[in-house]
């Protein structure tokens, strides 16, 4: 079996041929789906645990305390212990809640983030879905998550939940515009919506460098808007602890609560991975100049490491946002979006279109 850490397409091809040798095409498809499903389920769970651990350590680091450090070396098993605890907690529904919608809400939130993460290219030839409308697809699927949040808040029949859900709705739909427009910048540059093509187009330099200042403005707007879109950081009005106890998931207990928590972290990962894919070159290594010694050393590092390295770097920045800035007020939040980011973004798109028309990008 041919296996190269730099190009996974030969690896997947050989698995496909191996399976085709022993069974009929229909069964090959089924077993491939099961394989991919198992891999993604593992990936999803492990990533969730890792991100929660990372968040607690980063928070502790900034607040100058220790953070989890008792369970396992450096406390790395803390989140696993938490997960087991949450699995064995009673899940109950409060008296007057709408039971069906209350049950449905975590499903919608998790499915939305799951379907979006499936479309990411992790390395050369390592993606489950590679649509020619990849960016569009992710934008469409992630905006389904807000339905789950609104349902959760409304069906709880609790005032805190309702307030949190309503705020969250206003916030997410507003910032979706900025996310969409800043991703459009890269689509104009690369001329494609397919994520793998966008990554390939950055082989000779990342868009954040190749696109001059407009691309950098887009990147900054994307970071801000994606942070708000995932209900995080200084924009966590939907679950402002000091005002709304826990916002839209106040009435959720046990593992159902854990899924809202997990979805938030997975959305953060998705935002960071998209920023990486679109602006920071995806799994492409860092290059300076043409054919230098430095480039050869960088090429030696596997693409998967590059992808996750950059993604976790962006995640770290998003975490720093959360623990260093004070929370915004809802009117400040909407002013920031509608009166600053949106006009800047529209102007920026015209600038980028001009750049591309004149061929001034590299």
């Amino acid at each position, binding site marked *: 079996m041919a296996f190269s850490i730099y190009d996974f397409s030969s690896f997947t091809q050989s698995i496909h041929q191996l399976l085709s040798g022993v069974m009929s095409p229909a069964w090959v498809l089924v077993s491939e789906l099961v394989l991919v499903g198992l891999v993604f389920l593992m990936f*999803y769970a492990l990533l969730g645990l890792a991100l929660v651990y990372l968040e607690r350590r980063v928070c502790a680091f900034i607040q100058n305390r220790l953070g989890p450090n008792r369970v396992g070396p450096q406390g790395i098993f803390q989140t696993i212990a938490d997960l087991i605890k949450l699995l*064995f907690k*009673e899940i109950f529904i409060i008296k007057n809640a709408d039971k069906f919608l209350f049950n449905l809400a*975590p499903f919608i939130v998790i499915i939305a983030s799951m379907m979006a993460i499936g479309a990411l290219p992790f390395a050369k030839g390592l993606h489950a879905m590679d649509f020619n409308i990849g960016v569009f697809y992710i934008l469409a699927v992630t905006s389904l998550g807000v339905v789950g949040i609104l349902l959760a808040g409304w069906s709880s029949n609790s005032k805190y939940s309702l307030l949190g859900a309503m705020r969250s709705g206003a916030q997410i739909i507003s910032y979706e515009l900025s996310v969409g427009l800043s991703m459009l910048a890269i689509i104009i540059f690369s001329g494609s919506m397919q994520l793998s093509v966008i990554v390939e187009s950055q082989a000779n330099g990342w868009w954040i460098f190749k696109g001059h200042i407009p691309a950098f403005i887009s990147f900054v707007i994307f970071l801000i808007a994606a942070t708000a879109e995932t209900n995080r950081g200084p924009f966590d009005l939907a679950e402002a602890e000091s005002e709304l106890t826990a916002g839209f998931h106040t009435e959720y207990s046990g593992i159902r609560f854990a899924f809202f928590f997990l979805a938030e972290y997975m959305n953060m990962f998705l935002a960071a991975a998209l920023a990486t894919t679109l602006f920071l070159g995806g799994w492409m290594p860092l290059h300076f100049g043409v054919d230098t010694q430095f480039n050869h050393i960088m090429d030696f590092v596997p693409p998967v490491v590059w992808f996750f390295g950059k993604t976790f770097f962006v995640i770290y920045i998003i975490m720093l946002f959360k623990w260093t800035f004070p929370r915004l007020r809802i009117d400040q939040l909407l*002013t920031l979006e509608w009166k600053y980011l949106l006009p800047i973004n*529209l102007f920026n*798109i015209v600038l980028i279109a001009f750049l591309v028309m004149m061929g001034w990008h590299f």
Partner: protein
Amino acid sequence: MSSESLLLFFVLGLVLVGGAVVFSTFAAPKSWNKAKFEPYECGIPVKDGAWTQFNVGYYLFSIIYLVFDVEIVFIYPWGTVMKDIGMSAFIEIIIFFIILGLGLAYAWKKKALKWV
């Protein structure tokens, strides 16, 4: 395998949440307590439900959002062909953005962008 995986990830989400909820229903202990099934209101006895008349503060925002989101859906295909078409596409998008910008300016002036 693209369209099949779309279904796969949908099923994965269902299995992940459904499996955990079913497991938890059977594995977790249960107890009954009158106060436990009340909505949380900081310990004060609950007055009325939450399903009442509610001022949706962002009603106007969501209307403007709808306009802009549909525009973005239109601009995305333009973005993919901008490189090939060049000049005429650039002029068209400027006209498009002027109309869009006028709409935003109108909403701004009418104080629709103000949280009430």
